[in-house]
Each structure stands twice: as C-alpha cells, then as structure tokens.
C-alpha cells in the first residue's frame, strides 16, 4: 500500500515546500531590514502583474522548460546530467550557425532548421560524457561538469576567433538576419487582437517548449524506447536480464537530454538576443536541475516548476530594481526555493507520510 495519497505527493508537498521557502526568504529580508510583505508584493507585481511581467516570466520559463526536460529525461535513465548548461551553450552555436550560414526565406523554416542544429550540437556535446560513462564507467556527473567548462571556453574561442564579425570589439556574432526573427507574444496575440507588451522577450519558442513537454511525455511513457529508458533507470541488472543494452540507453538518453538542453537556444539566442553572445545560457542549465527535481521529472511538473522559476527570476529582478535589494539577496531567495523544493523534499515527505499514517490509524 502506498504511504499517502497521490495528490499529497504531487500537490501538497511542493506547496508546503514553497511556503517554507517563502518563510525563510521573509526571515532573510526582515533580518536585512526590508519589509517582506512589500517585497512579496513587488515580486508578484513584477512577475505576474502585467502582460510585460508575464512576457518576461514566460521567457525565462521557456528556457527552464527545455533544460528541465533535459535533466528529467536523463534522470529517467538514472543519469544525472549536470551538463545542460554546456549543452545549451553549444546549442546556441548551432542556432547561430543555422541562422547565419543558411539564407532562410521565412522564420517558420528558420526555426525548424535552428531546432535541428541546436539539438544536434547539444546532443553531440552530450555524447562524449555518455560514451565515457557507458564504456569506461567515468561518472557522468563529473564529466558533464567538466564539459560545462570546456563548452564555456569553446564558446569564448569561437566568438573571439571565428564567429565575431571583422572589426567588432565585442565577442559576439553578427545579428541574425531579419528572416530568422521569431514572432514575439505581442506579434502572435496581435493576430487575434489581444494586446500584449511589445517589449517583452517571450516568443514563439514558448510554444515549442510546450510541444516538447508533450513529446517527452509520449517518449517516456508511451514508446518502447521510453520503457527501456525507465527500466534501465530503475534496475541495471533488470535491464540486462531483459536484453536492454545499457550502452545504447545511456548514449541515447544523454543525446536526447543534450538535444533538449541545446534547443533552449532557440528561445534565448534566436528568439531574444538574435545573436550569440558569451555565456548566453546564463545559468539556465543549472536551474533546469532544480526544475526537474521540483517537477518530479514529469513533463507536467517540469512545466509548472519552470513557470514558477521564471516568476522567481523575473520577480527577483524587479525586487533588486525597485527596492534596492542587492542582486545577491535575490539569489539567496531563489536558492532557498531550490533548497526547500529540491534538497529538503525528503524531509517534508517523511513528516507528511507519518502524518498520513497516523491519520489513517486514527480513523481505523
């Protein structure tokens, strides 16, 4: 028998975690002489209070959906992909190559091309750690961390030495041509006559992220490959018994994971910056780990967690902007959310399980 009802597991635990994180954040704000209630108001207003606020929140959320899905897919094969950051950077290179080298007639084709290149570059970047894990037993956590640094250095090199237009000081590519610019929310909703802030960065990539959620769900729970990935993730010896090749699963799961992380660049590089700059992923790969943890590796959960983190990102930015709360303090608040929803999840779970058991006993 399960220890507690599923709704408690899926809904109650995240809510309690969030509440505790909010309490912790409030305490930190009070200790530094700020009014936590006012701060919460600013965050909500700045993160959800207007179409512009939503435009930013969903823009960040799009990044986190892709990286969250990337981490989640790998975790189903019991692979902890810490390398989504580096894979996203490489995905950015793929997007830049696609947008700058191929003369696209229309954005709708350009976005497909960019997706393929981003996925290819991100996926290939994940292949080396995957191969080392599968064949040599090198721990995927260590290798993917190292590959983040290599990716950052590689991007630096490419931007400074190869992709930077001649005569420009900044290490960045040229701006992408007009035909590759993705429609923003304002453009898309404008078709239906719905007004939306035109200066918000949320764009067509959000729709791609939603589609990615559906596809990942189908992959994991409806296909043979997903079945094999999950079986391998639960029991390696079991997989060996069933004739599922561990090498194959590790490599394929990591390539899919890397490809998803890479595709994030369709949002930030193609949809927003419209050129490739240094450190383009801005830590979204790491946020993806927290998003996957909080979303329990389920696409629906990843989606919700990504929107929450998008809100925290955007609301936090407003916090430092409007209340002169230092940027670092905002990071502390975000870290508290990660701490409570991710790392301390088990603490809350244990307490709650005991409470449910006691309640059941009392009723019986």
């Amino acid at each position, binding site marked *: 028998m399960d220890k507690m009802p599923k709704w408690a597991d899926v809904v109650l635990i995240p809510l309690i975690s969030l509440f505790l994180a909010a309490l912790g954040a409030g305490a930190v704000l009070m200790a530094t002489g700020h009014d936590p209630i006012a701060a919460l108001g600013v965050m909500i207003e700045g993160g959800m209070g207007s179409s512009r606020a939503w435009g930013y929140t969903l823009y960040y959320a799009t990044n986190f959906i892709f990286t969250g899905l990337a981490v989640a897919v790998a975790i189903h094969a019991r692979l902890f992909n810490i390398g989504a950051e580096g894979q996203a950077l490489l995905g950015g290179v793929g997007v830049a190559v696609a947008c700058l080298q191929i003369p696209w007639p229309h954005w709708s084709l350009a976005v497909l091309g960019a997706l393929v290149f981003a996925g290819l570059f991100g996926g290939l970047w994940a292949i080396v750690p995957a191969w080392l894990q599968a064949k040599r037993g090198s721990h995927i956590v260590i290798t993917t961390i190292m590959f983040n640094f290599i990716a950052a250095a590689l991007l630096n090199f490419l931007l400074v030495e190869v992709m930077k237009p001649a005569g420009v000081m900044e290490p960045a590519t040229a701006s992408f041509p007009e035909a590759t610019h993705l429609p923003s929310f304002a453009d898309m909703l404008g078709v239906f006559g719905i007004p939306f802030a035109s200066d918000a960065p949320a764009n067509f990539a959000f729709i791609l992220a939603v589609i990615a959620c559906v596809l990942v769900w189908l992959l994991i729970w409806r296909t*043979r490959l997903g079945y094999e990935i999950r079986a391998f993730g639960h029991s390696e*010896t*079991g997989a*060996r*018994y069933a*004739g599922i*090749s561990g090498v194959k699963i590790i490599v394929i799961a990591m390539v899919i994971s890397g490809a998803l992380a890479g595709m994030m660049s369709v949002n930030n590089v193609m949809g927003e910056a419209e050129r490739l700059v240094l450190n383009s992923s801005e830590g979204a790969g790491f946020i993806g780990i927290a998003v996957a943890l909080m979303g329990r590796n389920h696409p629906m959960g990843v989606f919700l967690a990504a929107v929450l983190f998008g809100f925290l990102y955007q609301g936090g930015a407003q916090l430092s902007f409007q209340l002169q709360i230092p940027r670092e303090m905002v990071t502390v608040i975000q870290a508290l959310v990660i701490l409570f929803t991710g790392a301390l999840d088990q603490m809350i779970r244990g307490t709650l399980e005991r409470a449910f058991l006691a309640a059941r006993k009392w009723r019986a």
Partner: protein
Amino acid sequence: MTDPVLELSGISKAFGPVQANKNISLRVMPGTIHGIIGENGAGKSTLMSILYGFYKADSGTIRIKGREIQIADSQAAIAAGIGMVFQHFKLVENFTVLENVVLGAEDGRLLRPSLAKARAELKALAEDYGLNVDPDAIIEEIGVGMQQRVEILKALYRRAEILILDEPTGVLTPAEADQLFRILARLREEGKTVILITHKLREIMEITDTVSVMRRGEMTATVKTPDTSPEHLAELMVGRKVLLQVDKVPATPGKAMLEVENLKVTDSKGVERLKGVSLEVRAGEILGIAGVAGNGQSELLEVLGGMRAGRGKVRVEGAEIDLTGRNSNGQTRRARGIAHVPEDRQREGLIMDFFAWENVAFGYHHSAAYNRGLFMDNAALQADTTAKMERFDVRPPNPWLTAKNFSGGNQQKIVVAREIEQGPKILLVGQPTRGVDIGAIEFIHKQIVTLRDQGAAILLVSVELDEIMSLSDRIAVMFDGRIMGERMPQDTTVQELGLLMAGMNGKAA
C-alpha cells in the same frame, strides 16, 4: 515441570498498517531445541528482532528465567544471555577468527590481553561443544560452515544461554547441516537453549524438541515434535492441506533442445566461475542442477539467458548460438524461444517500481502483441495482464499495482506467468520458489511440470535439494564451476547428492 527460560506474552508489533506480530505468546524450556516455523512474512524475523533489541514491541512482556526485562538494544539482549546467529553473517572478512570473536567484547584499551584471554576461552569452548575452529584463520579464507561456527562461538563467548539461529542451513551443504545439528545437540546436552528459525520442515522434524508455528503474525500452534508430522506442520503453516510431493508422470524425453559443451565463464575479477560445463536438456524433461549457492549455477543461467558472455559451445535445437558478440543478449535468446525465470526476481525479473502490466511486457516489450506502430499498446498489455493474473491466480489481481506491492509468491507468479505464457521451447528457471509461500510453491511447480509435459526443455537451478529431488527428471550436481556428476532422482539419495555438492565424487566413496 521446570520453569521456562524464555517467556513471551502478548507481544504485538505493527509497521504502519501491517500487523507483523499479533499478541504472541511463547514459552521456551531450558535445555531444549525449540523450532519456530512459518512462511515468509509470517513474522518470525520480526519476533526475533524484538527479542534481540532491534525493534521495540508495541505491547507485551519478555521474561527471562522468570524475571521481566526490557530489551532496548542488542547490548541488553547480550547481557540477558541471548545470542543471535543471523542468516547473513556479521563477520569482518579480513579479520581472523579470534579478532572477530573479540570484536565488540574487548576488555580494555589494549587488544593483546583480550586476545590472549579469548584464545584460552575459545580452546575451552571448542572442547566443551566440539566447535573446533582455527583461531588464527582469516574469515574470508574459511568455508561458510566454519564462518557459521564463528558466529556461534561469538555468541557463546558473550555467555549466551539462549542461542537463536535464523535459517542457519540456507547456505550449507547437507553434510555441513548435519554437522551443525550435531553441534546444536551438543549445546543442548550442555544445558543451553536453542531457538531454530526455519521454513524447512525436514530440519524441524530432525532436530527440535518442540515446534511453534507462525502464520500471518500469529502463533498458531506449539506442539511437541514427536507428536506431529511434516504434513500436519505444513497444514498449520498454510492453513489448509498442501501437497508436499510434486504430482507428475514420468518424463518422455524427446530430441536434444539445449546442448552445452565445455562452457567457461570468467568474472570481472578474473576468477573462473564455470570451468568447462557440459550438459544436455531434452524436450519434455526437467534437468535439475543441484549445488550449494555460489558454485557457478548463477553464471550458467546468466550465460544461457544472455546476461553474460561465455566461452564454449551452446546449441539450441542443434544450431549454435553466439555467446559473446553484440547479438548475445536477452532479446536474441528470447527470439530463439528461450524463456528465463531469473534467480533474483526483485533485481532481475521485475522492475519493482513498474506496474504489474508493465512488468508483463518486461523482456517481451518488442513483441508485436504489445506494440502498435510507434507506441506500446498499453491497453492490450493491460488486458493481457488481467488474463494472466487470473490464470496464475495472482493476488490481488490488479494490473495497476506496482511489483513491490505484491508478496514474494505473487511476484514470482507474475514472472513465471510472463515466461511460461510465451510458450517457450526452453525454460531456464533459477530458484523458482525462493521466498515463496508453500501454497504458491505448489502452484509454480505444477506450472513447470505442465510446460514440460507440453514438450519444453527445462533447466532448473535450485539450492533447495527437496525441490530438485521432487521436480527433476534428471539431476546434475555442480561444485566449483564443474558438473560433479549426474544422477536419476529415483536412483539417488540426499546423502549421495550432498557428497557431490561438497565436491566429493560419490562413486569413489
């Protein structure tokens, strides 16, 4: 009549909603061997854990020699004169026997005086109870039977008056088990009390004075051993009449389905686990592989099942199969009509976190019946699971329960149903009834025999000699990676097989 040395009354213990022990009362007389028998999950281990201070009972009292005591931890249990020999030994592998005996019972900060004292005491114990062990031998270099003696010595060194042994013969050859029983008898003569926990009826009948039967957390009966019979005990354990002997007609072996020639396996540490095994299984017969665990039977099953690479020749219906290459895996084996009920259902045969219906596809997830285009046909799979659960009497018959929520017997029924219902030509079976209750054992045995009668070749590996004797049409005994000999079940005895299992060729003796 003397007073009981150990008296439990009204012991209850619940784990969440599961009542592991219900109002248990037990009186153990001094200087006796008291058996406790029951199926897996009947609550034997929980009861002993309470006695040894691992769990605290929710209610009830424990009296030793008439005095009520509280056992808060194992230290308290030892102080009360209780010694425990666990099924899985708690020994430091790279320490000597002497060091293991002293460990945790040192007298002072310096080791030397303790060791000297222990050495003298071990000598005395060896003389008193016939427990001869070299005190300077390293644990990992001595046999399992010897390791078990060290565990007993550890308890005696700590002045145990009541010795509890949990499934002590699981890892022993019949000869080693006989030696153990002689030691236990000697302990009884010297006035010690022994509590023997087992699920083997034969052992209870052979050695105990009194036997208590547990079923579903309750103590259902306590009887004098001479006043009972194996059939009666089995009935008390299960709650209904059971068939202890497998009901089957003589085999009519057909053509050779599985031929193994000079098969060798080296493990990842470079140790040769199979040293040239040759055997043959014919259509319509069950070849039983007897042997003490760890003599290469697992490796044999793994190579044949495609889980491990091997060297040598294996022919299926006359055609040689690949043992090393890319095409040697569980999938290619299944494609050749080889089904495999693995030894460890929890780590191999099932994914414990998968639903029952997902597990029914496990290994056969590429099968056309379970797929529709790009996707798996979950609806078909669920319907198939419901049907299989009904035919194999899996309880509860709910495809939406995860494997870990079924009892051991029902988990095994799911695995057996999956493998047998594929209609294999060859069935590899490892420990089909390990941790399975008697009722389910009966059922699983019947299914295996039915498959044999339909013409399948069956290779059965089991450490339960009773199972090998009653199920097999032909018996091969493995020792140290080799086949020591083949016997027909009707022409051999447990004693002869026991000698072969210990590496001695029965013919020469």
